[in-house]
């Protein structure tokens, strides 16, 4: 035991445990503590920063700490949403890892009483490497299969390919659910005397220790840890979803929690602790799949598709009646009491008995108060020094300051996977099930329409690792502003922010500085914009033998949109394009891609400096424009791939020319491929009389182009006539050519 405890816990943790217990722990207690105090559940390195995030707002019905965040949109509609990572499992077994990730995020949503209506994802690979390519394909399949089997459409996806994801793909999945505000069920409302109900799949050895596993670096050795992989069972997931929603609709459970990381241990202890009570668990009653499974294995198992609920004794028969009907395996595995302790019985003996506050909240967390906001804002400028980042081999180049020509940029644009259509990803997913989607993946805006309440919900998911790699604090500010602009372009002021913070090992100080910088940027954004953080997920240790990933915070924003099914969409007419803001090439994504490919560094690349107040004012002005003229004009954010990508994807037609105005104050490289703060594109069709410049009088607005009859060219005095048709074809062609793989045996 002595050796085991030293292996599992740090000296710090061991001391805290021995002091809290006043004795040596039992094996079962050590197993429970090892899971609950792991980075994954205990947030040892992140809690200091996360607790500073603003999370209060009148419309937040459930915030961080619950299974998912819930915001009230109107009296009859609330939205539950959450993002979660499944990076490590996906690196080991991509298909199952991604599929179980979807299963897990769905459970987080319906556990709260919300019906899952949409999935989104943020996927990051290095598809130039054969291994990365294979991971990408299997991850996409895993997500598609689980979503399609359960009937939840994937409505939007984001994808990037950079060398730092070569061994550590990021698989972040978002689920969005709808419910009536009064239906919200939390994990914190159990009552003394309530019975503890377990239902769903049996408990097996799969994923044993998975939560701890997620906190280990990936080495060749861990790639061999095969028992740590869970297998998804989407049809069981669907059954559980329906049964859970029926149980909640009929008011049977008093509290609910899904079994995710650290399975039974985490769900039972948290439901009791959050309710301010105690719990007694009988492991002999837990349905098991593997003969000879031990108490510790049951406590740590991460078998998928399992749920935990508390049910008042007088409703026990109602719960059984429903579960028998589906039919689902279930068992009564314990009782809630008012002891503030967790007691576990196994083989008739007491295997564990410890105070819940010690188990759930007693993990010693790192204190980083020496890292002041000033220090975090300063951060580390890494545009030159990229030591330790995976896949980068900076080439000594005397000509690094050389700037790319327009042709270089067009070639890079055409020959990287970044700006190909993500159709490869979403076409495998059913994205129109239930007919709630307006637009869809690949369409510029992702809107969900709720026919019952007649409201449209705008969804945004966004990450920009070249920015956050260069400077975590300034980069995160830029990502947040970019995501905000996407939400505004979709007609919505964000009502809530969820996040998935993907970082390397927090045991190195630079990661901590980066992480602190990111959370500081989030705090500033949320305070200025008055947008609460409603939940999130931290994934550390995204690194392997070949190096670390770039810090990659992924943000999800949800808002109530002004746009409905009758919103304006460009279908091929003539009109005028206005550009708001001043893009700069070096701040754009394409410049980073070009520089990485050419020199293996990010030298000279820039992070746009954003001013949240200014972004807010402009956002509000554009929403007023939409409010008055949603059917008569279109607003687009100028994001990845710059203005050029928007022109190609939205406006290029074989029978139209885009005619750039004379005397524009930009170089074509900046105009077409740059990015910057407060940049949007606004299109006004000829027949409409909307005066954009009057609406946005306080901002830099320029009439940059007209769309007229023609032959599919971009023309102007700043560049030679450019045929857009090949670019358009490429945009439609999607990712497949980049993924085609020759099987070699």
């Amino acid at each position, binding site marked *: 035991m002595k050796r085991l405890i030293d292996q599992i816990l740090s000296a710090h943790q061991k001391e805290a445990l021995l002091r809290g217990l006043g004795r040596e722990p039992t094996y079962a207690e050590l197993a429970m503590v090892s899971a609950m105090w792991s980075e994954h559940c205990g947030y040892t390195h992140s809690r200091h920063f996360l607790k500073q995030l603003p999370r209060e707002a009148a419309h937040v019905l459930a915030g961080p700490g619950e299974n998912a965040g819930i915001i009230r949109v109107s009296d009859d509609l609330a939205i539950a949403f959450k993002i979660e990572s499944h990076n490590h499992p996906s690196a*080991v*077994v991509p*298909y*199952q890892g991604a599929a179980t990730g979807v299963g897990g995020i769905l459970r987080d949503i319906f556990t709260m009483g919300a019906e899952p209506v949409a999935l989104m994802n943020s996927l990051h690979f290095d598809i130039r490497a054969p291994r990365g390519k294979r991971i990408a394909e299997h991850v996409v399949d895993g997500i598609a299969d689980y979503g399609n089997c359960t009937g939840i459409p994937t409505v939007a996806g984001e994808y990037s390919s950079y060398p730092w994801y070569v061994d550590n793909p990021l698989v972040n999945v978002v689920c969005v659910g709808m419910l009536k505000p009064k239906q919200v069920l939390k994990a914190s409302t159990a009552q003394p005397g309530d019975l503890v109900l377990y239902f769903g*799949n*049996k408990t*097996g*050895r*799969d994923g044993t220790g998975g939560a701890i596993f997620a906190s280990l670096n990936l080495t060749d050795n861990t790639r061999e840890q*095969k*028992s740590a*992989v*869970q*297998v*998804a*069972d989407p*049809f*069981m997931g669907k059954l559980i979803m329906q049964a859970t929603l029926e149980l909640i609709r009929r008011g049977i459970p008093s509290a609910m929690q899904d079994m995710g990381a650290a399975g039974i241990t985490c769900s039972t202890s948290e439901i009791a602790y959050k309710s301010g009570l105690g719990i007694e668990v009988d492991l002999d009653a837990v349905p098991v*799949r*593997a*003969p000879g499974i031990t108490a510790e294995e049951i406590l740590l198992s991460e*078998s*998928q598709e399992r749920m935990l609920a508390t049910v008042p004794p007088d409703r026990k028969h109602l719960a059984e009646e429903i579960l028998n009907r589906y*039919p689902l*395996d279930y068992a009564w595995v314990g009782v809630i009491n008012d002891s503030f302790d967790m007691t576990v019985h196994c083989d008739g003996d007491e295997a564990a008995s410890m105070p819940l506050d010690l188990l759930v909240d007693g993990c010693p967390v790192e204190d980083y108060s020496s890292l002041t906001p000033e220090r975090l804002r300063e951060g580390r400028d890494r545009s030159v020094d990229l030591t330790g980042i995976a896949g980068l081999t900076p080439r000594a180049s005397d000509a690094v300051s050389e700037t790319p020509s327009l042709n270089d940029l067009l070639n890079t644009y055409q020959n990287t996977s970044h700006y190909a259509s993500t159709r490869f990803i979403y076409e495998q997913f059913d994205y129109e099930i239930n007919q709630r989607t307006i637009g869809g993946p690949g369409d510029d805006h992702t809107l969900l329409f709720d026919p019952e309440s007649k409201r449209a919900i705008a969804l945004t998911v966004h990450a920009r690792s070249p920015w956050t790699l260069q400077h975590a604090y300034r980069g995160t500010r830029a990502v947040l502003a970019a995501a905000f602009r996407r939400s505004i372009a979709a007609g919505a002021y964000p009502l809530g922010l969820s996040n998935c913070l993907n970082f390397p090992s927090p045991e190195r100080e630079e990661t901590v500085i980066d992480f602190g910088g990111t959370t500081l940027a989030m705090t500033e954004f949320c305070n200025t914009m008055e947008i609460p953080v409603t939940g999130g997920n931290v994934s550390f240790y995204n690194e392997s033998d070949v190096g670390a990933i770039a810090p990659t915070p992924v943000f999800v924003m949800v808002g109530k949109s002004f746009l409905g099914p009758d919103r304006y969409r460009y279908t091929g007419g003539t009109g005028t394009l206005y550009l708001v803001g001043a893009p700069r090439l070096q701040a754009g994504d394409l410049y980073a891609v070009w520089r990485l490919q050419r020199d293996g560094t990010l030298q000279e690349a820039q992070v746009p400096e954003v001013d949240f107040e200014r972004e807010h004012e402009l956002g509000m002005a554009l929403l007023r424009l939409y409010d008055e003229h949603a059917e008569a004009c279109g607003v687009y954010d100028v994001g990845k791939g710059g203005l050029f990508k928007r022109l190609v994807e939205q406006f290029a037609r074989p029978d139209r020319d885009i005619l750039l105005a004379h005397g524009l104050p930009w170089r074509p490289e900046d105009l077409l491929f740059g990015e910057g703060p407060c940049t949007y594109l606004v299109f006004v069709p000829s027949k409409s009389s909307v005066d954009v410049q009057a609406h946005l009088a306080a901002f830099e607005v320029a009439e940059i182009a007209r769309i007229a009859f023609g032959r599919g060219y971009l023309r102007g005095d700043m560049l030679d006539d450019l045929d857009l048709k090949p670019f358009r074809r490429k945009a439609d062609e999607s990712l497949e050519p980049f993924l085609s793989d020759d*099987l070699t*045996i």
Partner: protein
Amino acid sequence: MKYHINISVKDGVLDPEMETLHRLLKRSGVKGIRKLNHTQRFEIDFEEGYDEATAGRIADAVARDVLANPEIHDWTIEKA
């Protein structure tokens, strides 16, 4: 020359198909089953003129790289 490749789910890894079948049997009144396993058998018939070593190596590669998922499956290869 024929080779057989037998692929089964590793011990301890969830097999949703077998779990579903097990539930169905239980519901239909079949009692006494502790666990169900299944094995998939592939038969590879080689063209004339392949020596055993080459054929065996190909069968091995096909099993490992194409038919089985080494993270989830066990497999055996036997010459028929």
